[in-house]
């Protein structure tokens, strides 16, 4: 099963402070460990919310746009990894080793797998369509 691990933002990430070379090196070693264990699938870091925007869908098809930064930094994300492991416990065991600074936090969430959508897509047509789109996207980005 796959999990996404969301790294929460803090003052530093929101200020765009880059990790120190030592922190960067530590994180690199940790990811290397995940790769060697056949666990790591993907991961990226996020720029501060000041570089982003939020769209809210209101009534009557009205949308409102709010540019970053966003103040409630507890709900902000600063990075993510996707891992493949056997259980939530294993995901917790791995991610507890993240060399994250004191006071930071991570959230672990399980990803849907294709079969999970069977109740709302009994014929498989919607998933088929979704798979086609994913294939197209992969091709566009040179992964296929």
């Amino acid at each position, binding site marked *: 099963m796959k999990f996404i691990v969301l790294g929460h933002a803090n003052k530093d990430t929101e200020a765009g402070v880059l990790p120190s070379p030592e922190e960067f090196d530590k994180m690199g070693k940790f990811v290397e460990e995940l790769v060697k264990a056949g666990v790591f699938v993907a991961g990226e870091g996020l720029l501060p919310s000041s570089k982003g925007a939020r769209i809210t869908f209101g009534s009557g098809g009205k949308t409102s746009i709010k540019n970053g930064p966003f103040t409630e930094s507890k709900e902000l994300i600063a990075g993510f990894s996707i891992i493949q492991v056997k259980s939530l416990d294993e995901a917790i065991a791995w991610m507890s080793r993240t060399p994250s600074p004191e006071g930071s936090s991570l959230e672990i969430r399980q990803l849907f797998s294709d079969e999970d959508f069977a109740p709302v897509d009994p014929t498989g047509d919607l998933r088929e369509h979704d*798979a086609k789109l994913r294939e197209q996207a992969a091709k566009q980005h040179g992964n296929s």
Partner: protein
Amino acid sequence: MEEAQRRIEAVFRIEWARLVAGLARFVHGDLGTAEELAQDALVAALETWPQDGIPREPGAWLMQVAKNRALKRIDRQKRWEKKEAELTRAMEDRQECSADAIEEAADDDVGDDLLRLIFASCHPILSAESRVALTLRVVGGLTTEEIASAFLISEATAAQRIVRAKKTLAESGAAFEVPRGRELAERLSSVLEVIYFVFNEGYVATAGGEWMRPALCEDALRLGRILAELVPNEAEAHGLVALMEIQASRIDARTLPDGTPIPLFEQNRARWDRFSSSAVCAL
């Protein structure tokens, strides 16, 4: 199961292969003893971690505890031998080596030990079924119970296969080493066969009422990825991972929502998992 215990077992599971691999070299390739020592370390962890918390470097903690036990055993053995006046020169040499090995182990590359362990558990002197059971146990970290249920055999049978495999290895005096030269190709084939067998067993699930067991496929993929990382220059290892990725990407397309299998020629290729397929093509 209690949450604290589940947490500890998850930590233990991800440390298991490296722990057994490091200990196996420490005790000169005796997988039986290595596994016993690793189990002792688990018991110690279950006794202390619930109160003290999981240590910051659980792998190092477990290895230290297990090695202390190993040293106690050697010590006991020494005393017994003195008492019995049966201390042969050969045994002395062996013990000296054991003491040296502690120092060595501290510096040595963990990956080498893991590779040694994989080659040992897939050794051609073992029967095919023993190789599979032993590899899933010592490298994959599956419990005997899990192996038994994966292959629909009794737990006693699974345990017996593993015990027999360890005994055969010990008796053969097979070196706990990464093979070199011409032997490497032959031994690597055996490793690849074992991994692919596990994958196929999950994919075809010939033995079971359940038509497909994705968990076994995932185990095989993980073993394959670990191997490919350990032997980055061996194209066959990467090829096997790619092959398994292609087949695994079809898993979701192979059953209807109620679990009924769909024959290959009726499967909708659009439902093959594009993520896995694109990983293959990116290689």
